[in-house]
């Protein structure tokens, strides 16, 4: 590292990004703090999960404590268009979108990265729990965090070599308790907010309420049927259901029933018993391979089909640059169109795509 290399730290006011900033400051980098002002529904800015006035004040306090400049950047319009738009559009099309993927790909690691580079920074730093290392041929590998519980490689599998060249993840080598200890020993009085997986822009609301407010015509009631066409009742609108869901279907049946799939053209919710749930086959699109190209395939690897899903062994077959066929060794429940399938070689995140 050249001396006084400049870095921009994406700060949220939380413990992870605060410690990330402190660590780099300690290491002698010229550190600049930044916060993205993301979109929130009018009048709900206070209950957003991130970039609330509170969070911003907290990040400013941390920056002042570290003696680094801090700037807020407006990303409301682009976030509304790309991330929230994708979220609403996805539900309208019957999938269960993962807006964090779009946010990381287009907002953090494109929009914010461009701002960081414009400031003369060499790196953009976030408080994500992942690690980087160099491959034998000089390419950058994305590794799972030391703290497997906190590992966030699932949402960062979208990163390319060009982005990773400018990325630093200083806390991926630590466990969450270690990070908290570091915060304490560095004198960072960071509020220990509960970790949450809620989407930041839902403002603490159920996503269904959000969809109805922001896309009033998105849900229309239709039939609930079994695969064989037996009509069991009426659903309130397909966006309100997820694959694998059991509770809240509002139908009485001799056996517990699960959501198997959504038939969009017919606006029908297909349900069935537990043994009908799950499949071994999945097709993945919009793939990203962290190395830049797919490994020679087919090959055996671990696959995660949701952020919190367990690894599953599978046969992975890259069909083209952005299409992957995955055949899991055990049937997988909860294969959910719109979520990502992320492929690992042990600790190395190879890439993934959208189911």
């Amino acid at each position, binding site marked *: 590292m050249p001396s006084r290399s400049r870095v921009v730290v994406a700060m949220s006011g939380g413990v992870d990004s605060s410690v990330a900033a402190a660590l780099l400051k300690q290491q002698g980098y010229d550190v600049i703090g930044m916060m993205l002002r993301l979109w929130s529904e009018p009048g709900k800015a206070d209950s957003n999960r991130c970039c609330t006035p509170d969070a911003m004040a907290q990040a400013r306090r941390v920056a002042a404590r570290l003696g680094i400049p801090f*700037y807020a950047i407006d990303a409301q319009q682009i976030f509304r268009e790309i991330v929230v738009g994708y979220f609403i559009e996805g539900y309208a099309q019957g999938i269960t979108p993962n807006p964090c993927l779009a946010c990381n790909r287009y907002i953090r690691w494109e929009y914010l990265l461009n701002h960081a580079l414009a400031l003369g920074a060499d790196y953009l730093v976030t408080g994500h729990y992942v690690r980087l290392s160099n491959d034998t041929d000089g390419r950058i590998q994305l590794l799972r965090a030391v703290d497997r519980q906190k590992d966030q490689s699932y949402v960062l599998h979208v990163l390319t070599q060009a982005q990773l060249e400018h990325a630093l993840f200083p806390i991926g080598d630590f466990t969450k308790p270690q990070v908290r200890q570091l915060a304490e020993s560095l004198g960072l009085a960071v509020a220990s907010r509960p970790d949450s997986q809620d989407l930041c822009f839902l403002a603490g609301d159920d996503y269904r309420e959000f969809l109805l407010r922001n896309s009033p015509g998105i849900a229309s009631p239709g039939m609930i049927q079994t695969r064989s066409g037996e009509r069991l009742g009426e659903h309130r609108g397909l966006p309100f259901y997820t694959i694998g869901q059991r509770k809240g279907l509002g139908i009485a049946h001799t056996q517990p029933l699960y959501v198997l799939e959504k038939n969009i053209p017919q606006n029908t919710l297909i349900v069935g018993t537990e043994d009908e749930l799950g499949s071994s086959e999945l097709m993945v699109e919009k793939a990203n391979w962290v190395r830049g190209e797919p490994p020679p395939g087919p090959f055996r690897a671990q696959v995660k089909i949701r952020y919190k899903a367990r690894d599953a062994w599978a046969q992975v077959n890259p069909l083209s640059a952005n299409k992957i066929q995955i055949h899991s060794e055990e049937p997988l429940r909860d294969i959910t169109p719109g979520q990502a399938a992320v492929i690992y070689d042990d600790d190395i995140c190879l890439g993934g795509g959208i189911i």
Partner: protein
Amino acid sequence: MSADKIYLDYAATTPVDRRVLEVMLPYFSEYFGNPSSIHTFGQQAEAAMENAREIIARCLFCNPSEVIFTSCGSESDNLALRGAALAARQSRDAKHILISPVEHHAVSRTAEQLAEVYGFELEYLPVDETGQVSPTQVAQHLRPDTAVVSVIYANNEIGTLNPIREIGEICRDRGVPFHTDAVQAAAYLPLDVDHLQVDLLSIGAHKFYGPKGVGALYVRNSTRLLPVQTGGGQEFGYRAGTSNIPYIVGMAEALLLAQQERQTRHAHLLPLRDFIIAHILQVIPEARLTGHQQSRLPNHASFVFHHVDGNALLMLLDVEGFACSSGSACKTGSPEPSEVLTALGYTRDWGLGSLRVTLGSESTQGAVESFVVVLPKLIQQLRSMR
């Protein structure tokens, strides 16, 4: 001030002049008395305060009994608007308030509250594309039941000066109290309240090398005003609260220096300002000067750049070592075009790209030269990121 940084935001605030600081210091611990007290300690403090009042009265060409000390320019604006409006309603059932659309928020938000909460009828005067109010328009909009008129002397965002004297004459003829926010003007312009024909005039010390946290309101003896802050009878009953002696003393000294040194300060700043304006308009495409070309503060250059994110520009400038400001001063990353620029007719894609460069005591030719070299590069960089 950071050694390697160049401060170009004197309209936001100024450093306290050393000479001002010197005269303030004895009044923190040595002469600390409460001027309301009977004893010697109190008398010493009172003497200092009344001396300060006299100095300020001389600068405003008014009677000391017409100078009310407040905590800042915003408080002065609040007291002027709210105090005059409520008094006019009480005495003559007036209910109409007339202000320009380019007022500082201390005036416009107060007027809005008077309308929304107190039932006044708020009307905005038209302005031209330089942000100037025409006296003729004031004459046309004045009504028998107008409670108070307020027009800013020198605008903080765009630096434009208003024809205060001409507007004051019209208001005087109609018997309507006229307030001007002179917070930006006080550092550089004459404050002769009789010449200006104003009844109420606000200043804040930190804009002219005095301390933050102190201001004053001139209230013409004949002008009726209801107090906003009630309590002890300080400040002739207009503004209760123990007087802030060291700051009041500092403000008087700072205002005196500003008025005494007006010529030299102008001579220092005008060429620098004109250098920046000429250079930027010449070098940067799709750049416009906001506000009036001639009739503007001598230290004030303000621009809009088409298709530039003004907040991002401030950030880049700061990292390069230049501290500037914009019209839509916003630290939270939620920019909206400023109301002032909108009132001047700028569309969003221009209004969001505003930049305010304000010069002061430490500004040098070298500093502005390096500034005009850096700025065009940053503008180009931001435009290429779109």
